[in-house]
């Protein structure tokens, strides 16, 4: 069913030096600005090296969630997958392709296979490039660099999950329309909403008691992604300090936020207690939801593509 020529074509298209350089610039630019902010935090200047390393490591884990393995790879995935049907239809190349002796299901799944290869390559690239970028931007020593490499498996694992979700969502929207913009806008909209916008909505909903047991809990993608990220970190024995737990809690709702919003070890040497987890649903439920969504989006994408008239 998989046509390797189609798979190879997708990989070749997005694995050019031009795309890689552009991707790295987009990946590293926000990290540069974020690290500039870190350098100005007064208490970090006076912290002992060990604590400073922990905070910088924590910064990597947080930026890994919201940007490196989150929004950045998610946007990239949606851009790749939106081209599968929509871009080819608008470029008029799809008409020739559907006349070839390849089933439409095979054609789309071959493209998705190419995307999975790309997702793996770019996840690895993102993890190493972000660590290298943070080390360079903050002029860190080699020891801190090696400490940060501990996060690589977690970042790669989470990137692949995010890619799968937003890639399959891109395939679904792509199968419905002939305009790449009509695919990219809703997918990025869902991404921004899940990772950033929903945080205050979730807070208010939880305070008012309308979150739990309602549709909100089921559709809260940010919580599920946070839940998965924290569990992946745990699986890889990566510990997070309360400060980062607070930050992740604010964005995803997976930790109970303390009254003063974030917990920082101002008193150096004194290790604060970990934050309590918010367990709206289990990690296995979040995994099941994510994979169900991927199969649903991909299946619907294939279904609509098979039914669709190509002009």
């Amino acid at each position, binding site marked *: 069913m998989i*046509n390797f*020529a189609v798979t190879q074509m997708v990989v070749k298209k997005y694995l050019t030096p031009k795309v890689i350089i552009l991707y790295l610039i987009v990946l590293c630019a926000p990290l540069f600005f974020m690290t500039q902010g870190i350098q100005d935090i007064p208490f970090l200047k006076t912290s002992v090296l060990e604590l400073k390393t922990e905070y910088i490591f924590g910064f990597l884990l947080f930026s890994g969630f919201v940007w490196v393995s989150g929004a950045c790879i998610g946007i990239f995935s949606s851009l790749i997958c939106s081209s599968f049907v929509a871009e080819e239809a608008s*470029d008029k190349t799809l008409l*020739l392709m559907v*006349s*070839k*002796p390849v089933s439409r299901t095979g054609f789309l799944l071959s493209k998705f296979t190419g995307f999975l290869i790309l997702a793996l390559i770019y996840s690895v690239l993102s993890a190493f490039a972000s660590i290298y970028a943070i080390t360079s931007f903050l002029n860190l020593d080699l020891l801190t660099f090696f400490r940060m490499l501990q996060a690589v498996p977690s970042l790669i694992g989470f990137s692949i999950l995010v890619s799968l979700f937003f890639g399959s969502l891109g395939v679904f929207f792509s199968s419905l329309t002939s305009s790449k913009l009509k695919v990219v806008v809703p997918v990025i909209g869902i991404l921004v909403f899940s990772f950033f916008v929903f945080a205050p909505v979730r807070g208010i909903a939880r305070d008012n008691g309308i979150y739990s047991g309602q549709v909100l809990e089921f559709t809260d993608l940010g919580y599920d992604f946070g839940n998965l990220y924290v569990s992946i970190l745990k699986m890889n024995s990566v510990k997070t300090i309360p400060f980062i737990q607070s930050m992740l809690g604010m964005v995803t709702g997976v930790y109970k936020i303390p009254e003063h919003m974030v917990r920082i070890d101002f008193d150096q040497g004194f290790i604060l207690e970990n934050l309590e987890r918010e367990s709206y649903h289990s990690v296995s439920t979040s995994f099941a939801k994510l994979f169900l969504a991927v199969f649903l989006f991909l299946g619907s994408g294939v279904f609509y593509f098979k039914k669709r008239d*190509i002009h």
Partner: protein
Amino acid sequence: MEKAIEAQGLTKVFGWFGKKIIAVDSLEMSIDSGTIHGFIGPNGAGKTTTIKMLIGAIKPTRGKAFIFGEAAGSVRAKAFIGYSPEHPDFYSMSALEFLVYNGELCGLKQGEAKKRGKELLDWLGLSDFADKNARKFSAGMKQKLSLAQALIHDPDVLILDEPTANLDPIGRYEVLEKIAELAKKQKKTVFVSSHILLELEKIVDHVTIINKGKVILQSEINDLRKRFSERHFIINTKNNQNYLKSIQALQGAENAWINHEMKIEVLVKDSTRFKKAVIEMFRGKEDELIELLPLRMSLENIFLKVMGRETE
């Protein structure tokens, strides 16, 4: 003879509820293997929609189509066909890379596809452009490359939608010559739609005329010409104006007029009786009659006649 293409009650309705447009209406068609079949009709007749249903790009609302007995749109049916669209466009890659990709899509190995691609580019006179970006090709070169991609897997049936659209006269001549060569030398079935009937009639041996989504005529072109020419004669005498009235009055003649070549054009009821009457009329003054010929109707004239839009 084996049927290369068959359509049974093929129907396509676009739109929803109140805004329904019937693009193709219960189309019945049967194309013999090894023929060059012209598919003609006015704009909006449903030609492109029919072609797209045959290649599997558009799903029929009702009815079925078959390519060598395989359901149109299935992988097996598509293995028999090579298709070239009206406005071909390609990926941003070299012409040869594009052909290799198409070959691999059709199941050829990379080496085979490359060899075949080079042969086709050479055959179409595009060898010098093998490494050039196909997207930047001129309209004529794009049509030729589109023909090459359609032929990459050596299909039995070629389905060509307006292969000469947007081409200059030389480009049109070259593309049609290649199509004719394919059918004659390689015995391929060619199903071709075109607006340029004067050129199409040089290569087709069968024709289907479609209007408002329905087939209104399907015939071998020679039969068609014979059918339409049987009642139509051209007479040229030393003084056409003088003889016009006498000819109008002849047995079997229905109407006669002086045409744009200043010859007498006659529409007859009974061609045998009419020919006899003309010969009788000019007996003893044979030198007055320069020519008496059945009118050879062009495909364009037949098409216009069938469409009910006589030019004269």
